[in-house]
């Protein structure tokens, strides 16, 4: 089975301070740690497990700058066989661009399965998988939390709202966007990543793929989020804060 996994190299923002750069159009990346997107890592893990089960080969791909190759190296260390970078300045504001570039690469290369994460933690459009399905005229499904692949076909479970899920079936080739939790990404050591350096990363310019970088959605600017509720921050010693929290709970529910 021939599998393509599309990943994005993104800053870890869960516990980080995200500062807007002086230009007002980008974020200050100096103090941020970058890694393969959380959802994408589940997609790579899923692909590698399918390869281990059915045989075949896994290619990891990113549309990004040179820094993004770190995520490709991680993909290789996780068990991918080949890596491709489509050279663009990351990240484009237009949600249409990555899928258009990936489609230009994937067309005619005979992938049985094209995987990606449901979304990325930077811009979070969640659009690359579905748009890729549209460009390649292949069935697609997102929010995949369970997957079973058989000869030329697959069954999957996709998540819906409020604890509900649905089971679906489709034939391959297909495009799937993977939800976290489908497959816990394996741990890769620094040594593993170093070993993966022996595998070269193929770098392609959009022009090599017969396409170009053009964006129809334009970024106007970034700003701090608008103020939310008027939160009261509790101050004091842990003991004082503890007592206050207990009061706040018991005021409402004695």
């Amino acid at each position, binding site marked *: 089975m021939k599998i393509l996994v599309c990943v994005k190299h993104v800053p870890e923002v869960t516990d980080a301070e995200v500062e807007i750069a002086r230009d007002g159009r980008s974020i200050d990346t100096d103090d941020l740690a970058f890694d393969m997107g959380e959802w994408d890592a589940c997609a790579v893990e899923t692909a590698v497990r399918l390869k281990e089960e059915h045989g075949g080969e896994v290619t990891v791909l990113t549309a990004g700058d040179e820094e993004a190759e770190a995520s490709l190296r991680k993909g290789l260390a996780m068990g991918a066989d080949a890596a491709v970078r489509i050279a663009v300045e990351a990240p484009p504001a237009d949600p249409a661009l990555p899928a258009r570039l990936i489609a230009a690469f994937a067309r005619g290369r005979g992938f049985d399965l094209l995987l990606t994460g449901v979304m990325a933690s930077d811009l979070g459009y969640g659009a690359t998988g579905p748009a890729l399905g549209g460009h390649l005229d292949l069935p697609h499904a997102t929010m995949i939390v369970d997957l079973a692949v058989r000869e030329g076909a697959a069954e999957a479970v996709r998540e*819906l709202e409020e*604890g509900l899920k649905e089971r*679906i079936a489709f034939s391959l080739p297909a495009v799937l966007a993977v939800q976290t939790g489908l497959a816990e990404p394996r741990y890769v050591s620094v040594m593993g990543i170093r070993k993966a350096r022996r595998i070269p990363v193929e770098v392609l310019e959009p022009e090599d793929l017969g396409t170009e970088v053009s964006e129809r959605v334009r970024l106007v600017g970034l700003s701090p989020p608008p103020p939310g509720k008027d939160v009261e921050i509790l101050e004091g010693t842990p003991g004082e804060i503890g007592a206050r929290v207990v009061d*706040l709970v018991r005021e409402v529910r004695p």
Partner: protein
Amino acid sequence: MTRVLVLAEHRRRELREVTLEMIRAAEAFPGAESTVVVPGAAAAPLAEALAPFAARVLLLDHPLLDAYSPPEYAAALRQVVEREDPEVVLLPHSYRGMDLAGRLAAVLHRPFVTDAVGIRPGDGGLEIDRQVYGGRVHCRLVLPPGEPVVLSVRPTTFPAAEPRGSPGAVEAFRPEGLPEAPAVRFLEYVEEAAGEVDITQAEVIVAAGRGIGEEENLALVRELADALGGVLACSRPIVDRGWLPRSRQVGTSGRAVRPKVYVAVGISGAFQHVAGMAGAGRVIAINRDPNAPIFKVADYGVVGDLFRVVPAIVEAARSRGS
């Protein structure tokens, strides 16, 4: 005048609330003339039910569209777009809308933006507000002026539309050339097994998030829940790691809860989580990051190390008895 096509969403023969929100969102466009598109032959009663809320309702009268399959949905909507020539195609950024928006835009060759939380039409193009980097940054985008667009809007951004003075017209359109069988075949719904506790009924919820770090630290949060007479819940990462069952998850894909008090421990406050606790009374958030989005929806906040704060609250609760 702006022609807006609003895609209705239904599940198990019931309209989803987001549909009325999208009808309301369409009003953000100057002189909006909205047509609500209701997919599926079996959805005829739902098309009728929407008539009081919209000037015009268009039933996509084809049995293949009764169950969702992205290629055929996109193909059918393409025919509608060719017929109606709308400037805006509007759909919710629900799980289904998220599944469709990118494909629809690709098939229509139209520029698009997903998950909008603000819409400002202007002469320079349609300006869109979004939340990026996990809700830590606000982003303004502009779509090209004069070009028709596809737009998905975050649920709960707009209130539900109210009934209009006179009900709108309901028309039917049968898309042509759809295949015999859908490319993505719906087999069945899978219900979450009921958990040992029903967090939707809890008056006090203490919820653990990624910030607890290790599974063993869950005991600390459980202790806090017990000390406050509450129920232990969590955000998605805790379930993904298998530390708690899905029945304990608060959020879009988990449960929506309405406790009197919600204590969020080490939860950053991603939109998908916040959507599930919007009905909570008093919200108390504990997080070491003062910029965590959870503080935007909290009434009270403790900025600090949960491993110091949580034991102090447990201690205070115990020393005063219950």
